[in-house]
C-alpha cells in the first residue's frame, strides 16, 4: 500500500496544531483530514476509514478517549495516537487502558510521529 493510500485523521481544537500537522503529514504523501472536535471526527470516520488518528485528549464537548471509543466501534482497525499537553493525566491512563496505539506529549516530536506513520505502513505492508 502506498503512502498516499493511507488515511490519516488529525483531531485537535487548536487550529495551529491541526494545520501544521496536516501540512507535514500531507507533504509526506498521506491523505490527511482534520476536524476540530470529536463529533466531527466520528461523523468523518463513518465516511472514511482512517488507518491513523492523531487526537488531542482534551477537547471541548466530547473528549479524546470517548471519541476513540466511538471510532473503535465504527472502524476497529483504526490506530489512534493520543496527544496531550500534560505530563500526567487520568485520561491518559484511561486511554492506554482502552488500547490506544501511543500517547505523545506536546510539543510533539514530529520525527517520532513520522516514524510511527512509516512503521505503521510497514506493518500494514507486511500484513498485506
Amino acid at each position: 500500500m502506498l503512502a498516499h493510500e493511507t488515511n490519516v485523521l488529525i483531531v485537535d481544537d487548536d487550529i495551529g496544531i491541526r494545520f501544521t500537522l496536516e501540512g507535514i503529514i500531507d507533504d509526506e504523501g498521506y491523505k490527511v483530514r482534520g476536524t476540530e472536535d470529536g463529533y466531527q471526527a466520528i461523523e468523518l470516520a463513518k465516511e472514511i476509514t482512517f488507518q491513523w488518528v492523531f487526537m488531542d485528549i482534551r477537547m471541548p464537548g466530547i473528549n479524546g478517549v470517548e471519541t476513540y471509543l466511538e471510532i473503535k466501534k465504527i472502524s476497529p482497525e483504526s490506530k489512534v495516537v493520543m496527544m496531550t499537553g500534560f505530563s500526567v493525566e487520568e485520561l491518559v491512563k484511561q486511554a492506554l487502558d482502552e488500547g490506544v496505539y501511543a500517547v505523545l506529549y506536546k510539543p510533539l516530536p514530529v520525527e517520532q510521529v513520522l516514524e510511527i506513520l512509516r512503521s505503521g505502513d510497514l506493518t500494514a505492508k507486511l500484513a498485506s
Partner: protein
Amino acid sequence: MISSFVRRQYGWMSAGLFRKYVFIISSLVVGALLISGGSDIYFTYKDKLNSISDIERGKASIAASNIDFFIGDVQRQLKRAAQVEYEVGDSGIAAREEDYLALINRVPAITELGYWDTVGHEQLMMAQFGRDAFSSNSPLPVEQIMIEAKARGSFNGPVYFDDDFVQHMTMGIAESGTRKGVLIAEVNLSVVQVIIAQLSLADSGWAYVVDANGLIVSHPVEGYVTQKTSVAHLRQVQTAIEAGTEITDRASKLSVSIEKSLDGQSVLATSFPIKNLGWHVLVEQPRSEALASLTSPIIRSVMLLVAGLVVAVITSMILARRMVSPILKLRDAADKLSLGSDSGPDGEHVSLKTGDELESLGQAFNRMSAQIRESYATLETRVEQRTSELARTNANLENEMIEREKAERLAFVLQRAIEHSPSAILITDTNAHIEYINPKFTEVTGYTSEDVVGKTPGVLKSGRTSQEKYGRLWETIRSGSQWEGELYNKRKDGKFYWSSESILPIKNEHGAITHYLAVEQDVTERKKAEEDARIANQRLAEMNRTLEKRVTERTSELQQANDRLIDAHDQLVRTEKLAAIGQLSAGVAHDLRNPLGAIKNAIYYLNGKLNDSESAKENPRIPEFLNIINYEVDHSNKIITDLMDFARIAPPSFAPADLGTLVQDCLGTLGVKEGVYINVLDGHHEDLLQVQVDGEQLNRVFQNLILNAQEAMQDGGVITVSTVENDGFADVSVSDTGEGIKPEIINKIFDPLFTTKTQGTGLGLAVCQQIVSKHGGTIEVESKPGKGSTFRVRLPLSAVEGLSKEAQNASA
C-alpha cells in the same frame, strides 16, 4: 439586888471548894483500895491457873507414859520374838509355834499372833483361845501390813473394834536376819481405855486420846470412841499434833491454854504425846471450876473498899470545913471593899485567928484595904480635872466632825462621780497594787474588785506591748508626770482590747506620791476600724500589683499570639500564593503547549523546506533564526514543565530510608561541573540516619540544592555535603564556597518565581521547601557574601513515630 446576886455566886464557889476537897480525898482512898484488891485477885487467879496447869499436865504425862509403856512393852516382846533365828522347814515352824504360844500366854494384850514367810505365805497363826481362832477384824489387808512392816521394821495399824466391841490394833514386825518374814499381832487396847477412865474419874476434868489424825481413840464418853469422832478441828488438838511427839521445855510451858471443848465448853486444856504411837493424851478442865477459888479474895476486897470509903468521906469533910471558913470571911470583906459600901475610913477589917498562913493573909488584906481607901480619894480630884479637859476636847472634836462630815459628803459625791464615769478608772498604791476600780473598769475588762484589788495592773498585760513601753510609762509617772498613750490589753475572758490611757501620780500635801490613777477608754473599735482601713489599703495595693502583673502577662501573651498570628498569616499567604500558582500553572500549561506545539511543528516544516533552499544559502540567518526559535520554544516548554511540577507536588509516599544512602544515590546521578569538587562528610558512621521519607521527592531536593551550589560557583570550588544527627533530627547540609547570597534577598529565596538566574524559573528552592515541609522538616540557609552559603535540611528521625504516622495519615 446586885450584892445579893454576887453573894449567891460566891456561896456557890465555897460550896464547890468544899465538895472538891471531899471528892479528891475519897477518890484517893478508893483508888488505893481498888488497886490493892485488883492485884490481889489477879495474882490469885494466876497462881490458881498455874497450879491447875501443873496438875493437868501431870495427869496427862502420867497417862501418856502409862500408855507408852504398855505399847512399848508389847512392841519389845514382839521384836524380841522376831529376832530369834529358826531353822527352815517343819522343825523351825514347830519351834516357832512353841515360842509364840508362850509369848501369847506371857503378854495377855496380844490376842492373836501370825507368821508370814519371806514370800508372803501364811506359815503360822494362833490366838489366845486356840491355834485356829484367828479372827482379825483389821481394816488393813495382810499384804499391806507386810509391806509397811518390811519397809520400817515395825508397823502399827489403825485402831478397830473386834466382834466383842473391844479396841484392837494390828502390829506388824519384820524379822531380822536373812529370812525376813513378818510377825503380825493383834493387840488388845482396853488398857488404854482403863487408864483414861481412871484419869477422868479422879477430878472434875476429863482426859481423852487422839491418834495422829485427830480421831478420838479413847474417851470417857464411849460414844465418841465407837463413832471414831474427829476432834482435829479443836485448837488444842491441832496444837498437840503440830508440836509432834518430842517433848520440849517450851512445849510444856505453853501447853495449858483456854480453849473450847468438843461440847463447846470453855476449858483449860493441855496435851501430852504418846511417843510409841504418835498419839496424844489431852486433859481438859472446865474453866468455871478452875476459877471457883477466886470468890473469897473478891469479897474481901469489896468489904475493904466500902470501909475505906466511909472513913475517907468523914475525914475530908472535917478538913475541908476548917480550910474554907477563913477564906469565906476574906471574900465577904473583899466584896464590901469593891462595892464601896459604908465602912470606916480605914477600909474593911478582917480578923482571922487561925494562927497559920491564913491569919497573915488576913492582916495583909487589912493593909491593902487601907491603902485602897487612900488612893481612892486622890483619884476623885484627878477625875474631875480630866473631865473638864475632856469636855473641851469634845467641843473641838465636834467641830472637826462637822468639817469631816462635809469632806465625807464631798468624797461621797466624788465617789459617785467616779463610779458613773464613762471612763474606766483604776487607782493603785505606790507599789502598783490596785486599791480601787470603778464599775466601768469592770465593764471594760471583766475584772471585778474581788478579782484585782491587791494585784497589779499586770493582770491586764496582753503580752503584745513591748517592755520598753511599760518602762517609759513607769519612768514618766514615777518622776511625777502624766503619761498618755495607748496600750493593748487583755480582758478577763482572754479577749484583747485597745485602751487609751491617761496615767498620773497622786501626791499628798508634802508632794510625795501616794497613789497612781489610771483613766482609760476602750478604743478597740477605733483601732479596729483603723486596722481594717489599713488592711483594705494593703489589699487594694496588692490587687493593683496583681492586676498590673496580669496586664503585663496578658500583654506579652497577646504579643506572642500576635506574633504567631503574623507567622501563620505569612504562612497562609505563602500557601495561598503557592496554590494560586499551581492552579494558574495547570490552567496555562495546556493552553501554552498547544501554541508551542504548533510553532514547533511549523519550524520543523520550515526547516525541511528552507534549509536547502536558495534563500537560505543566500541568507544564512534564516536557518540560524529558525534554530533560535526552536531553542526558545524548548526553553518555554521547560518553564511550563517546572511550573507544572511545582503545582502538582504530590503528598509524599513515606518509606524508611537511610539519609546517607539517599545523599549518595543523588550524588551518583548528578553530573559535576569542571572545577567543582564534592566533599561528603558522613558525621554518622556507625548508626544509620533512619528517616521516613519519599525518596524520589527528597532526591529532587538534594539535586536542586547541589545544582544551585554548582551554579553559585562559576569559577569552581568545593561543595561539602554532610549528614549528622542533631537533637532528634537528621541534618543534611549542602555548603558551597561560591559568591553567597546578598542579605537583602536572603528572605525571598524560597518564594516561588523568585530567581536570580537568567535561565531560572524561581521554583527550585520553593519546591525544595514544599517537599521538606511535607516531611515535617525544615530547610534553613546561612550565607556570607563572597564566602559561600549553607543550606541545611532538617528531617525528623523515624524514632519519632508520631510525626511519621501523621505524615502517613496525610499521605493517605
